[in-house]
């Protein structure tokens, strides 16, 4: 793995920039990650994974599944979760080199703005993220993070839904 870019770099007008994959550990983001890995392999593009530490309002304790994590900062737990996640992807796709050199970013904040900001920082060529397909009341209450990213992002955004899901999914 080379030096790669660091987050402090000035954004470059670079079409071969990494594919930024937003991970929230849901089924949809898993589908998005698989899609992005294949895409990276086809385009020979580097991969960069981002997780925004932001506990869903309806799931307090999201980062606290393991009781021993309670006294650790959430970012620390999230970083571990993301590293394990990337390692398991690398295990599932052993021949994809981009995964071995993938960069992992963990930031605190509100997901949509953070994803777009990080994409700019790493000079990403596109953003890939899961799409939950909320409808009705949950959509009104929670809103769609993907939609917000689409509105804010100056680069292409690919939204991927987990297989077997349709628009009436009520999982918020």
């Amino acid at each position, binding site marked *: 793995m080379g030096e790669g870019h660091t987050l402090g770099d000035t954004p470059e007008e670079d079409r071969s920039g990494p594919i930024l994959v937003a991970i929230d550990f849901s089924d949809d983001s898993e589908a998005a990650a698989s899609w992005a890995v294949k895409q990276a392999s086809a385009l020979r593009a580097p991969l960069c994974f981002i997780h925004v*530490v932001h506990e869903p309002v309806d799931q*307090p304790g999201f980062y606290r599944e393991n009781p021993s994590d309670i006294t650790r900062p*959430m970012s620390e737990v999230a970083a571990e979760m993301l590293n394990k996640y990337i390692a398991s992807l*690398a295990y599932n796709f052993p021949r994809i080199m981009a995964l071995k050199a993938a960069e992992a*970013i*963990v930031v*605190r*904040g509100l997901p949509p703005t*953070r994803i777009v*900001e990080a994409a700019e920082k790493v000079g990403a060529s596109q953003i890939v993220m899961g799409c939950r397909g909320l409808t009705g009341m949950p959509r009104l209450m929670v809103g769609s993070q993907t939609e917000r990213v689409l509105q804010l992002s100056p680069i292409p955004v690919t939204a991927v839904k987990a297989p077997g899901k349709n628009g009436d999914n009520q999982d918020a």
Partner: protein
Amino acid sequence: MRNLTVSPVLAWHAKQRSLIGLAVLFLVFLIWIVTTPAFAASPGGNAIDWMGMSLQLFGGLALFLFGMEQMASSLKQVAGERMKDILGRLTGNRFVGMITGAFVTAIIQSSSVTTVILVGFVATGLMSLAQAVGVIFGANIGTTITAQIVAFKVTKFALLFVTLGFGMMFAAKKNKIKQYGSLIMGLGLIFYGMAVMSVGMKPLRSFEPFIELMGSVSNPLIGIAVAAAFTALVQSSSATLGVIIALAMQGLISLEGGIAMALGANVGTCVTAGLAAIGQPREAVRVAVAHVLFNVIGVLLIVGFIPYFADLIRSVSPNYGDMSGQARLAAETPRQIANAHSIFNAIIAIGFMPFLSPFARLCERLVPDQPLEKSLVIKAKYLDPTLLETPVFALDRARFEIGRMAGLVNEMLKQSLPTVMTGTAEELEEIADMDADVDALYAEIIDYLGRVSVKELSDSETKQLMRLFEMAQRIEDIGDTIETGMVMLGLRRIADGIVISPTTLEKIMEFHAQVVHAMELTADVIKKQDGKKLKQVKGMKQDIARMAEAAARHEVSRLTADAPNRVNTYTREVEIIDYLSRIFKRCRRVAKTAMASA
């Protein structure tokens, strides 16, 4: 356990603010009375001893606050850590969070303290806004317990509590019993403060202008504003409730007026958490905003219905139908106000629960994130978990990461000296913050090496592993030396008002540039295992020693000069030279170790 304590400085500031608030109130009250002609003499000709009354009122309030402080501090001693632990653990579910908030606040007797703890938890990333909001709702319920206790007419037992508590503190040998004694005495002082305030206000019962004034406080907006300002000044909603109930015990205030003032106390109490959130990360500011919004919205929802709410409270509170007039007010109103406070806070908290999600989102919208730079978490770049199975590669990756860590520390070192010599306190804090990244990387490296160590390793791999541990440790030490030692020197320079002379600045900067160069070379030695660069680092030993000596000689010559503050200046400058020399020594050791593993 990390970051689970409320800063003593914060606690001291809160105490100081209460005292200043109390003093300001006392002065305003005196000036108001002296300059208001209506209070110069009562219409009936009964002169009121304003000075004596003011002393009783404010002396009573001081005793009340002192009692609360004593009780809270004993409770913290007896159960404080457990309370924080409970707060940290039991907030996985919003209802459990609310109940936890109510329970913890009832124990520590202050919603402000609960919210300040929450702000701290959220700022350090131990808790999320989603968890904190439920606890805030509960804290408002828990805080009403104080008003409930003081509304019981236990003032006649006040001195019994004081005596009993003092006896326990005096006679007990075990620290825990002493703390319980202090707690009981604190409770006694609260009751005694109430009694003093209540007796002090007795003459007002027949004083027309005051009765008219209290009539105007029945206008809810005035009542809310007065109580909010009072609470913000004394930084305690319980103290405000104490004064309201003391007024009620003399029959000086109606239930409607009391409810309005209790609502005002809810709003005023938000100031403390607001102050605690200043300068904190956005997540923590959102907690303070949630606290304010929740209380203000709650008050706005009920303010138009105070008379109906008062009727409801009268119907559920004890009733003294055999009495009439002020006597009946005095008998009924204290308990009614305490009940109104509890019921209102419980209804609002439970009523808000279904809207917790949109409420938290509203807070997030109101307080957007800071730009990304400030919230990046540094991550290991080379520590690939898939390589753990092949330790020889994994060790190599760890070495790269240690080289990267050395680069980070060097960046810190580069920026540190100019800031230590001439920078502001904020700039120094930024330098100290840079160490958090180094610490995070160090933790990841150690964790990774730990995982490598359980694999089957050859002798040479084991040796290399030990060297990598040592290198990471020494580089982390350098980071800590900058974070604590050098930054502290900078802070002391600011505190002592030391100005470094241009010639000294030049000499130390020259010395510093050499150490930075050595650190740069070391990072290269680690990453590239470059023998030539190690030679260069080793060769710098003589030069560095010479420069340190020259700088020290210059210092001694300046010591005899007639410069202001020269002893302090000398001490700081010599310490800087000493720190830089130590950093160079560690650097050299790291470079040597790095090459030994080549």
